[in-house]
């Protein structure tokens, strides 16, 4: 168990200070700030702002007001009876899909835009995989009257076309990334390079709990609201805590947001990585399950790499999980044994996507479907209740899902036309 440095009881529900991620930004051996010198000053400036404003009641009040009035928080916890019946254990969902823009990303986008405003920066640069973070960034740029430049891999732009359209409608400039794997990994690199060049007037609105210090801590602190709400809501609904927590992990922002409030509780916690075509095929995005310690995008953590230390391309059905690294706090939680990390395959995620859609009328993002898929596997042996973080909704994935289902021979036929085909 993690020792809390805080004297407050975790039951207080907030300000759980922990003996890591503070000071120089290391979570045990992980984290840190491995960046070109050009960025160090900007990161220090951000760190100062982070320490100042996340203790500033006016700032926090404005952040909470935006979450409430703009993002639509608190999001509910939903008990899903038919899915529970089918899976064999009670399952509850934390409904981040009900946020404005359709995912948890709006939580940290609002917080970071507020910080950017305080820092006097008028331009936001961001990377996006599934497009959810890009949409969230474009949204807050519109809301705060800022310029937004979003880097997105060409392959992801194809997979997530509706989100590209949304970002453009919101007034953001979407820059296609044509290098490397043309996915999230390269989009992050390009966004960092753009930031290096425009560091004096641009805020890098990082989309997950990854990157150089202070981003992993900063993003977590803006996502902690997920777990703090969920913990209180679950207690109120059931009179007890869940026995298990599940969330999907790409970079790991929705997962750390949920987990953080429960780290001192007697709750089993599982982070679910994208197993792609299966770990043994090498085509996956499971950095914690099958990667090794290394440095990527400014932090030391687990990454997918070859024996020479070159970063290997990740593969996942879900553009948001398709990343060869993971946030350093997750690397630490794995090392101290507080959180277990498992991988589910593309096929399991797709199956869970259909389960939740058909049984409960909730269409999950493919990212979130990974968490649901693990709950399905876990429920067979675990009595529950299991609380799953439904990090986003699946509207953006529909085109891609139809392609995938067709490729797997699933046909959709309208009842009225069935007879006509004979």
């Amino acid at each position, binding site marked *: 168990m993690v020792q809390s440095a805080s004297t407050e009881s975790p039951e207080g529900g907030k300000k759980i200070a922990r003996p890591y991620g503070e000071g*120089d930004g290391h979570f045990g051996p992980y984290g840190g700030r491995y960046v070109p010198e050009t960025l160090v000053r900007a990161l220090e400036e951000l760190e100062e702002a982070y320490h100042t404003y996340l203790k500033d009641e006016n700032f926090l009040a404005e952040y909470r007001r935006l979450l409430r009035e703009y993002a639509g928080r608190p999001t509910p916890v939903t008990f899903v009876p038919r899915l529970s019946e089918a899976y064999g254990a009670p399952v509850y969902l934390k409904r981040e899909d009900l946020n404005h823009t359709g995912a948890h990303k709006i939580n940290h986008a609002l917080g970071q835009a507020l910080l950017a405003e305080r820092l006097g920066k008028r331009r936001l640069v961001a990377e996006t995989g599934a497009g959810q973070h890009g949409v969230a960034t474009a949204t807050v740029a519109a809301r705060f009257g800022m310029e937004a430049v979003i880097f997105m891999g060409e392959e992801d732009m194809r997979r997530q076309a509706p989100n590209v359209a949304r970002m453009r409608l919101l007034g953001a400039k979407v820059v296609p990334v044509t290098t490397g794997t043309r996915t999230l990994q390269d989009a992050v690199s390009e966004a960092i390079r753009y930031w290096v*060049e425009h560091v004096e007037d641009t805020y890098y609105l990082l989309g997950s709990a990854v990157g150089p210090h202070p981003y992993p801590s900063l993003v977590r602190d803006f996502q902690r609201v997920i777990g703090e709400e969920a913990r209180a809501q679950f207690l109120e609904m059931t009179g007890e805590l869940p026995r298990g927590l599940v969330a999907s992990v790409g970079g790991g922002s929705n997962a750390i947001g949920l987990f953080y409030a429960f780290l001192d509780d007697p709750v089993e916690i599982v982070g679910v990585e994208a197993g792609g075509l299966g770990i043994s095929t090498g085509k996956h995005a499971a950095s914690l399950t099958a990667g090794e310690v290394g440095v990527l*995008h400014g932090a030391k953590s687990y990454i997918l790499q070859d024996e*020479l230390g070159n970063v290997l391309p990740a593969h996942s059905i879900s553009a948001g999980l398709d990343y060869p690294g993971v946030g350093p706090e997750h690397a630490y939680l794995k090392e101290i044994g507080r959180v277990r990390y498992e991988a589910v395959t593309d096929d399991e995620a797709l199956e869970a996507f259909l389960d939740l859609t058909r049984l409960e009328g909730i269409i999950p993002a493919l990212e979130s479907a990974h968490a649901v898929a693990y709950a399905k596997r876990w429920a067979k042996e675990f009595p529950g209740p299991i609380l799953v973080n439904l990090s986003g909704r699946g509207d953006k994935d529909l085109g891609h899902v139809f392609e995938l289902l067709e490729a797997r021979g699933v046909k959709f036929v309208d009842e009225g036309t069935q007879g006509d085909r004979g």
Partner: protein
Amino acid sequence: MNAASDGSRDLRGTAAIEAAFRRGPRPLFIPYLTLGDPTPEETRARLWELARAGAGIVELGVPYSDPLADGPVLREAAVRALRHRIGIGEALAFVRSLRDEGFALPLVLFAYANPLFRFGAERFAREALAAGVDAVLVPDLPPEESGDVLGFLRAVGIPLIPLVALTSRGRIAERLAGREGFVYAVSSLGTTGVRERLPEELLAFLAEIRAATSLPVAVGFGIHRQEQVEMLAPHAEGIIVGSALAHLWAEGGSVEEFVRELFSGVW
């Protein structure tokens, strides 16, 4: 004119770097090239070509999949080079073979943090000295994270070359405290690559470095024209040229002519 023509490599590491700056000419021409672009053999030929053209120190890059500090030209060079499966170990073997051939110019090995950690920082320091590496530069390892690597390299007498950027202004002395070799002054914001204009505050930046350290100063990022070299010459002991050379080779130009032209106002 250069160390290669001295025909000796009595000096190593920090001493070899210091001697190169003492020997001149001023400013010293410090070319960068990516090992393995387009092939290791071509890199070898280019290194000799650079030595003949008047290079004072050479900077040799280990290709990496995710070179955050590099612009498009050097990233493409890395992509071409990675086809030859070159990592730290291969780079050290390459340097050793170069030394066996009698290549005597001081050599800075440029590597990103992850390949270096993967190889092992302590083992790297030991083997780098044996291979004939004189200095090391890691573009994504600022002072806050460089403790271990710096310690291992210092123990064998190899300097870890510090970088300072325009954004380091106001605390350059702190960034350079206790460092050896030379200072790599990053001339512009952004990644590597040729630039039409160098920033106006560049000379004030160089003056601030001068006030903060007695180490020689080499300027890099964006330099490709004679007027730039002429402007920088009174303020810097070295000029680092990378992308412009990669471009030149891609176009099939003459290195000797390029260097003669680039330094014509000052040598």
